[in-house]
């Protein structure tokens, strides 16, 4: 999917995931001490303060939630209140986006927010080059 929306130049295999750093892309989860389907996770598993701390420290340009569920837990609102795309909130200088979940459990995939993210990311890199 990352290659399909042009966030990576080539299609990486799962075992090559560490190469994402070469493309300026990192990975994390809202719940790092638990695993399982979203429905199996407890509210206490979601550590929004840890995420804020990590993002403030690392200071990426963009943060993208892979699905509304993670975003809803972060913002502490019902999933129905989450819209795809750029959010009003930021973490420090980091803009926040919500994209359609790539989980196979998501039956209503849409790529628009991911493609918007790629455009913003590209513009961000280009502006750095011009500085």
């Amino acid at each position, binding site marked *: *999917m*990352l290659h399909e929306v042009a966030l990576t130049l080539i299609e990486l295999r799962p075992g090559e995931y560490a190469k994402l750093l070469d493309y300026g892309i990192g990975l994390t989860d809202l719940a790092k001490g638990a*695993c399982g389907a979203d429905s199996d996770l407890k509210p206490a598993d979601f550590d929004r303060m840890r995420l804020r701390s990590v993002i403030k420290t690392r200071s990426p340009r963009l943060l993208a939630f892979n699905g509304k569920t*993670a975003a809803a837990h972060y913002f502490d609102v019902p999933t129905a209140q989450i819209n795809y795309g750029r959010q009003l909130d930021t973490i420090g200088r980091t803009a926040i986006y919500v994209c359609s979940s790539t989980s196979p459990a998501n*039956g209503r995939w849409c790529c628009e927010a991911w493609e918007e993210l790629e455009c913003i990311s590209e513009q961000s890199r280009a502006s750095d080059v011009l500085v």
Partner: protein
Amino acid sequence: MMSEFGITILPDLLANDLDLVIVGTAADAPLPSGDFTTPVRAIGSGACFTKSPSR
């Protein structure tokens, strides 16, 4: 980090000044065989490697 299943959840893949950090909910449950070897399963946001079959 060990999960309740006794399986290692992959740590964050992060560095300073990245363009983008993708955030998932949590690592997926291990396979019945106990296999938990790919980042697709061991970092929830690693699901971005996959395509939804419903597309």
